[in-house]
């Protein structure tokens, strides 16, 4: 991506991340990606998705984790990253606009999805977060914010039985497994 296009893209991503928060101006373009300004497409491979319900949520579980496989997709209008729990038909899917330094998009489930601890979770979230790249070159989202519904249940037919919460203050992360 050219420096000019990259700058325009960062502005686009910043504009998409509003929610009553003043978005800082995009960083100065750099011809060489560095750990502080990763390029799109670095989120790939096996990750643990962690979703934390907002602090005000009255739910039985504070959060839930899932193993997902991420892969970049540059065929759209803007670069993206897709992460799923299974293929060919996932029950949990992330579709994120990948701006390199940050991502933003939807996290959704088709129904109750079993977390790594056995709780079933329903998600309808719009999530955003900064991308960090470690010295090993691995890209992660260490701490992001999310808005929407998080529900917990004891089984696939227990939607909301362990709590339902709609909030703009959920949190999420995507860390290398």
């Amino acid at each position, binding site marked *: 991506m050219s420096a000019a296009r990259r700058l325009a893209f960062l502005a686009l991503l910043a504009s998409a991340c509003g929610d009553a928060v003043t978005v800082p101006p995009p960083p100065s373009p750099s011809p060489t990606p560095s750990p502080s300004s990763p390029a799109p497409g670095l989120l790939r491979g096996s990750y643990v998705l962690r979703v934390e319900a907002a602090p005000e949520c009255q739910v039985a579980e504070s959060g839930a984790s899932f193993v997902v496989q991420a892969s970049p*997709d*540059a*065929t759209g209008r803007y670069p*993206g990253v897709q992460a799923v729990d299974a293929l060919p038909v996932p029950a949990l899917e992330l579709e994120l606009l990948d701006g390199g330094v940050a991502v933003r998009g939807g996290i959704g489930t088709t129904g109750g999805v079993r977390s790594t601890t056995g709780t079933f979770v329903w*998600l309808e979230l719009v999530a955003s977060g900064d991308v960090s790249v470690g010295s090993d070159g691995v890209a992660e989202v260490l701490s992001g914010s999310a808005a929407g519904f998080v529900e917990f249940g004891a089984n696939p037919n227990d939607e909301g039985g362990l709590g339902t919460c*709609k909030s703009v203050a959920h949190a999420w992360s995507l860390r290398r497994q």
Partner: protein
Amino acid sequence: MIRLLPLALAAVVSGQAVASDDGSPGPLRIRVTPALSACGGALRDAFGEVSHAPVALDVDEASGVAGADLLIADSAELTRILEGGLADERTAVVLGDVAWVTVSPPEQPAPSSLAAFIAAAPSRVAILGGAAGREARATIGLPPTRLAVSRDAAELRSARHALLPRSLAGPGRQVVVDGLSPLTVVAAPVIGSPHPAEVRSFLQFLGGRAARRAFEACGGEPQASATRLRSDAGYAQAVMDWWVPACSLAHNAYNHPVQVLGPPDAMNTGGKDEYTGMMSLGQGGWVVVDMGRPVVDHPGADVRVYQTTSSEPVTLYASDSPSGPFRLVQLMRTCGIPSPGVFSNHCDFDLANAGIASARYLRVEDGEIYPCLAGTTVTEGADIDAIAALAP
């Protein structure tokens, strides 16, 4: 499109059971979701009185159509069924709304608010499970230890303290809850039903007075009593930007953002996935539009989004600049209010929710967030027909 049957249309129903077009034996099979089981029973009985036609009624989730000729459900429960082409959206009928009520023992004073109701509830509060109850469960703000989440009509009806659609409310004191969107009750015929004549007869019956009385008896409010809609004062003029995930772009058929401009004009042209005039946003996609001039905050709703299929949720953001920052106006608003004279449904937004006096640029975002790869249609995500500024 979901038809709004004129309530003055008298039902013309034969006094005898109608033979199936293909001669398939058996009664008309109606499936009603737990939230509306009482309405299903009332409508079955009323239909039986005028038609003497046998009707089999089963209470179950609207997760499939096997064994059913017609579904009665909240529009939010029918999203996957309608969008997936399992039931016919063009001939579906909106019966009306069912409000959410708190239920308290009759000896207690009527709560002045949901907070007052919660404060007066000594122990557990019964509340509806499933998709139809999601917004209510999120709104009540009680820990799961204080909620009895159920889809069992008898269990919910017997609760002393409950937050329920009126159709499920027991004999206690009922108070309508402001701020919770009512259920929108839809009767949707199953495509490929072996009993098309019986289905047609029942849909015709739904336009008559007997059906209206039955619906009112189960707690419903027929559409004729709905508040008169405010008028549109202008429409989106230009697309400033948009994004739909590559997966959704590849699977959806309606990806052109210019379709959201101008007045509502979306149509179903004759079958599953056959539409014109709308843009499907896919999983979490969005479109930014220029309204041509600032939309000003007035008392009540200021912006209307026309959404074509079912009641897929929509999130709205607003800004004075096409590049933002955008402020959230409302998150994941169910978007399925019927629009008389217009094919698409709609939902309204109040700029005051964002604390802003005016905004020229609006960002409309999918709020369904349904996994792209699991989608079975070419219209995944909220389907945006038009974006209107409302007259004060």
